[in-house]
């Protein structure tokens, strides 16, 4: 781990993720990275570029296109004492490994009566917005957040990209990390002095009083932009970044809603049955009498994400849609 990097201001999300992996690989021999093209190619999104040269092919393992086998192999290696980081290139391909994740990674500990722990970290890219069309634009975080036995993370800032991996690897149980494809080139401070993130807490990214914008991952930027616009015409919105999608930090969310009495959820997943539904349900269950208006949801339209730019834009949550929802909630 080169200090130069950690103290560097303004690194990219990609570099922060890489630095977190380099640190983990350097610190613990049990850590290895495996996935399609993580080695020679440097990762489909360049996250692991250079790690093969630094740590060698035993620990940076290119896998064949066999999602089920290499995710399951990560589970087995974790059971046997390793600390694998398995990269599934994108969430779109993770369905091929979902059986391993649900029926093995998340289940073995309980089903074995506490004997088989699976300290596995799975990283995958998620989200749309780059005109990659229907089969490469999924946001299925909500599905993973439904699974008992795993923890689900969505780093939305460079600092979280830098500091969520260590606690994830320290977790004795499986952790799934979603990296939104639109964030890799985003730059910001890696918060060099910041310690490991507390994986149980959401963060208020912008304090406000009029309405709570509850979001995560790739939608955080849109929520913050909407909040700035709202501020211009005098509406002071609070922006909550969930960060950990399972377990959800109800205290932070409800604390915010109890202050603002209004909530708008922004989620890139499809609306019906998405994570937004769970958050809306919890808010109305836990803060029903504090609410001055129904909870609003700004989600992806219920359509396979189309290629054409204007159609994709119309399919995804946008600032304009957030503003409209806030006006409904506040108005």
């Amino acid at each position, binding site marked *: 781990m080169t200090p130069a990097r950690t103290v560097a201001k303004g690194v990219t999300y990609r570099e922060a993720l890489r630095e977190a992996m380099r640190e983990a690989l350097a610190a613990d021999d049990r850590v290895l990275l495996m996935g*399609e*093209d993580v080695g*020679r*190619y*440097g990762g*489909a999104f360049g996250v692991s570029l250079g790690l093969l040269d630094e740590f060698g092919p035993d620990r940076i393992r*290119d896998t*064949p*296109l*066999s*999602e*089920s*086998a290499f995710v399951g192999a990560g589970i087995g290696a974790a059971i046997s004492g390793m600390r694998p980081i398995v990269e599934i290139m994108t969430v*779109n*391909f993770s369905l*091929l490994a979902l059986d391993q994740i649900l029926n093995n990674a998340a289940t073995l500990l309980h089903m074995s009566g506490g004997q088989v722990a699976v300290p596995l970290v799975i990283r995958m890219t998620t989200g749309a917005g*780059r*005109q*990659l*069309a*229907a*089969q*490469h634009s999924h946001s299925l975080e909500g599905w993973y957040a439904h699974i008992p036995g795993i923890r689900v993370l969505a780093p939305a800032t460079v600092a979280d990209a830098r500091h969520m991996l260590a606690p994830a690897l320290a977790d004795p149980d499986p952790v799934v990390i979603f990296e939104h494809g639109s964030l890799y080139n985003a730059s910001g401070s890696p918060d060099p002095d910041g310690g490991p993130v507390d994986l149980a807490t959401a963060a208020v990214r912008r304090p406000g009083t009029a309405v709570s914008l509850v979001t995560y991952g790739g939608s955080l930027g849109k929520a913050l932009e909407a909040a700035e616009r709202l501020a211009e015409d005098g509406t002071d919105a609070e922006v909550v970044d969930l960060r950990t999608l399972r377990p959800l930090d109800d205290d932070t969310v409800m604390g915010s809603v109890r202050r603002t009495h209004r909530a708008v959820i922004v989620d890139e997943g499809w609306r019906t049955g998405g994570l937004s539904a769970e958050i809306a349900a919890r808010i109305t269950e836990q803060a029903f009498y504090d609410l001055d208006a129904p909870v609003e949801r700004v989600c992806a*339209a*219920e*359509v*396979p994400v*189309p*290629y*054409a*730019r*204007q*159609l994709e834009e*119309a*399919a995804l949550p946008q600032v304009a849609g957030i503003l409209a929802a806030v006006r409904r909630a506040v108005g």
Partner: protein
Amino acid sequence: MTARKRAHARRSADHAGGRAGHRHELLREMVRIRRFEELCVELYSAGEIRGFVHLCIGEEAVSVGVLGALTQDDAVVTTYREHGHALARGIPAEAVLAEMLGRITGCSRGRGGSMHLFDTGRRFYGGHGIVAGGLPVAAGLALADRLRHDGQLACCLFGDGAFAEGEFHETANLAALWELPLLLVCENNLYAMGTPLAREHAQIDLAARAASYGMVAWAVDGMDVLAVERATRRAAELVREGHGPCFLELRTYRFRAHSMYDPDLYRDKAEVERWKHRDPITALVRRMQTVDGYDDDALALLEKGVADELDRALEKAREGAPEPVEDLLRFVHSPREAP
């Protein structure tokens, strides 16, 4: 397959390969695909095309040789690297370009883009972005043919990387077990993104492995369009005889990066250069120069014809309207007749 039939297959293939006019057609088609994709690169750089774009430059002999040997009644299922397959199948360049420009006149109405070209009128069932995901679908198309005894077959094109996915193996077993009229065409370009064949597979003789499912399988020089066409004709004939699937491994190479996003750092440039010496287009031109007395003027004329076609196609494609945003939800479900 009876010796008689086999002989006949060989004869008719030779006959096909032997016709200068036919060779000229194959050349035209390969050049057309090459220039089309070079145009795609320009349009991508200019920002007119977006998203993922995967070029088959260097692999044109596969597109032209395989698709040319099928009938219009056969079904085709392929991957995201399918511009060549689509053009060789007869989808107008204009419709493919319009698709990549995201226009309503695109062959998928602009909803699919480069990776998802469709034309059911030509039984071209896409353009699949999930590696190996098209294989089971192709088996199902073949199952329908089998149940209807319609003499049609389904041809599925996929890569050497797809061969490692469980779905390939499930499909190969199912097709062989049910004796489905399925033609499996593995476009082995030696890499799955940045991973070379020997790091994808414990055994790299893919044809031999396919044979373990009890299907006829063999490997062919994928840089020789005439060899590809001959092999495909023969394989298609075998499949139509009704004894089940057939597998072709076409050994080829992509001259360009995996996709527009790929910095291509994992291949030795010398290796790429070596393969460029086997360019399927120059190879055929050389052959035609010797056996058909094909000359530079003829080639220039051919290039000119292709250039003109592509100019017109691009012009028309650019005229296409974008799908109105109001129609975003159209086609999530089929239009319903009143119950």
